[in-house]
């Protein structure tokens, strides 16, 4: 097991290196100039050139690449071209909101979706099943920003239960944190509830037809035990995959929700950096999210053996 983990972690290095080279080249080949953002609309071509020179953007590509890799190897993520702030500080400031909302979203989604999926499979072709499926289709089809605005309209503007926008770290108190984080997490949950509920239902349906379930029932096991101990545990592997990759997606791409609720997370940081062609920030963010993706996948793989003892490393 330890050997497997080490091998997986070592395998990350060439992947990250490839990502780094790819991102570096892609960014440099995309039109767009950070100097133009700094200089503003009034700047003359000569002023632009001076700023480019001061930022090192007129250096040949390979020199820029070597400088960047050298910084990375020293553990230095560089300095934002636009705000002159260390990238590591910017990322550290922004990762908290994204992480906490992603975790809350996954918790809320799992808490609701798994029972819904189990119920739908257990009461196959009943009104409950159709209700869960209808909700899933809706949750998956309505765009997140529409759901976000509807929630803001109802829960913030009309009922006044939650603030419209902003973020309070959990360190300021769970109540204060939830007052800001609940609506965005609920908005994001609609997609994940739909996804996880469908996946749970499909796998439960498959498992419920297996011989060992019939055996368990024949032996007089209570229905709850049959459903949750025998069936759900065996249906867990694909569900876990969906939950894990959902979490990784949440970390990397909750831009719309962060924008709608004005949350200072890494999704918005990445998009702002892309719009400003702030290369050091974009590079750091892509590397970070790729690394998280790989890490989450590793954790999912490792957790398989817990649910399915047949899986060995």
């Amino acid at each position, binding site marked *: 097991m330890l050997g497997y983990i080490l091998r997986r972690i070592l395998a990350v290095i060439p992947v990250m290196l490839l990502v780094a080279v790819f991102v570096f080249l892609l960014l440099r080949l995309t*039109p767009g100039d950070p100097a133009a953002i700094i200089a503003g609309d009034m700047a003359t071509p000569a002023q632009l050139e001076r700023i480019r020179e001061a930022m090192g953007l007129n250096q040949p590509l390979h020199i820029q690449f070597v400088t960047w890799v050298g910084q990375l190897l020293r553990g230095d993520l560089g300095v934002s071209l636009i705000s002159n702030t260390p990238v590591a500080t910017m990322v550290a400031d922004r990762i908290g909101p994204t992480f906490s909302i992603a975790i809350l979203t996954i918790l809320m989604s799992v808490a609701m979706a798994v029972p819904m999926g189990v119920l739908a499979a257990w009461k196959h072709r009943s009104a409950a099943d159709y209700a869960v499926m209808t909700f899933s289709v809706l949750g998956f089809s309505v765009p997140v920003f529409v759901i976000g605005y509807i929630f803001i309209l109802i829960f913030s503007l009309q009922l006044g239960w939650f603030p*419209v926008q902003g973020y309070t770290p959990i360190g300021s108190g769970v109540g204060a944190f939830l*007052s800001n984080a609940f609506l965005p997490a609920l908005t994001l949950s609609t997609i994940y509830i739909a996804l996880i509920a469908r996946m749970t239902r499909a796998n439960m349906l498959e498992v419920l037809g297996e011989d060992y379930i019939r055996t368990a029932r024949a032996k007089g096991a209570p229905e709850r035990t049959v459903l949750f101990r025998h069936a759900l545990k065996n249906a867990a592997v694909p569900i876990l995959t969906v939950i894990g990759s959902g979490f990784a997606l949440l970390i990397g791409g909750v831009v719309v929700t962060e924008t709608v609720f*004005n949350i200072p997370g890494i999704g918005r940081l990445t998009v702002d950096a892309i719009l400003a062609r702030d290369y050091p920030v974009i590079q750091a963010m892509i590397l970070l999210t790729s690394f998280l993706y790989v890490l989450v996948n590793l954790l999912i793989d490792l957790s398989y053996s817990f649910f399915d003892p047949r899986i060995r490393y």
Partner: protein
Amino acid sequence: MFNRPSLAFKTATFVTAALLGTTMLSGAAFAQSTVKAVMHSGLRVLDPVITTAHITRNHAYMIYDVLIAQDSAFQPQPQMADWTVSDDMLTYTFTLRDGLTFHDGAPVTAADAVASLNRWGQKDAGGQVIMDRTASLMATDDTTITWTLTEPFVPMLDVLSKQSALPPFIMPARIAETSADEAITEYVGSGPFRFVEAEFQPGLMVVYEKFDDYVPRDEPADWMAGGKVVNVDRVEWVNMPDIQTAVNALSGGEVDYVEAMQVDLIPLLEGDPNVVVETREPTGMQTMTRMNFLHPPFDNQQVRQAALKAITQEPVLAAMVGNPEYYSVCGAILGCGTPLASDAQTETLTQGGGADEARALLEEAGYDGTPVVLMAPTDMVALATQPVVVSQMLREAGFEVELQPMDWQTLVTRRASQAAPAEGGWNIFITNWMVPEISNPISNPMLNGRGSDAWFGWPEDETIEALKEDFIDAETPEAQVEVAQQIQTHALDNGLLIPLGQYTLPQARRATITDMIQSPVPVFWGMQKAE
């Protein structure tokens, strides 16, 4: 950020207020008033000399002060300093007023002002013109700055008092001695607010606190001039990339002020008695097109003339703004509502009916159907519709138009390319200016005719340069108006720009915010916040 005071804090405040109740009129003395404002963009660059971005300039007006400032009649007025001019118009003497203090506690001296002016003079287009004519700029004592020119420069005070693109802000000499190409790293001014660096999050939130030692002038505030009396304790600029969220936050009372409203969202706020939508300043913005003088077909003056005749402002403005309350047809290249506005040569622009003339001009010029590459940014609300309407009008007059959609970042990079349109260059694009920043022929970037040193489009135009010299030498306001009219006629004849009209940016505020000053720069002095 949504922080409710804790119960302990409320209790402590209550007990303290009760204890002191006998000596104080009310507990309001303890209330700290904070104004939360959503600005038009996030603040990222903090050095007002290195960038011309409006958000950085607005930030600079919070924390720095200027020697002299422009009032609503576009006239220079004393701010940090009074001035005298010698009879030969060669020596300007500025005397700093009493009580000027930097946020670090040091007094403002003439040496600080000289260092700041020198750094600014290397970057600003108007500043460079003054520096070219400067014999000496020195601090003759702690409060006196003596600026001696080699030849008279009539618009000297206009340039020094302008509020865009780079106003000459005064910083401590040790900071102002930073190279003009390198960003400063310490943000100490002597302005009415103090920058709270510990709470600054680039692109997200900027925090300012009232600077208690600031001594405002006695005159009432008028645009950037007059007394900067601060009535609130703290100002927070919150960046919200989504205007709908900003509107919701304003309705919900979480923010107090939205600097730039989108006109089509105004109806959402109109029925709300707690919110006021209004226009910040009467002159607003100019939207306009720029053609590339280097490549066919716009290297031909007749073809540029044809483009001008083909375009009518009204449909462009209607598509862009929609609500006529917020736009006006205006042919003045220096902006309507300014002292130098003129409507010479603008009949077809403002009234239409020029398409036939445009077709005739194109034929006369021998236009061979070379496609015109029109760059259209799709990610800027304020610039997304004009290219579509303009391209249609050009097509109707006989132009072949290739409308190329792209993001704004790509556009600003591509407009710097002097290559042929087929090889990554361009023929025409559209942008917007704040009227005060184009209201003077010396600082209007469209009126720079120095070929490759000029603004994107690179016209080589000796006549406009000569006319600008005439403007500099014009000694009376009447003479200036006369030269400005000649500049307008020539600029439109030669197609240096095609003005597409003027529009205003409405702002929205909670009704609890009052006494906001009308100004082209959003300022936070003067305003009051009722609890």
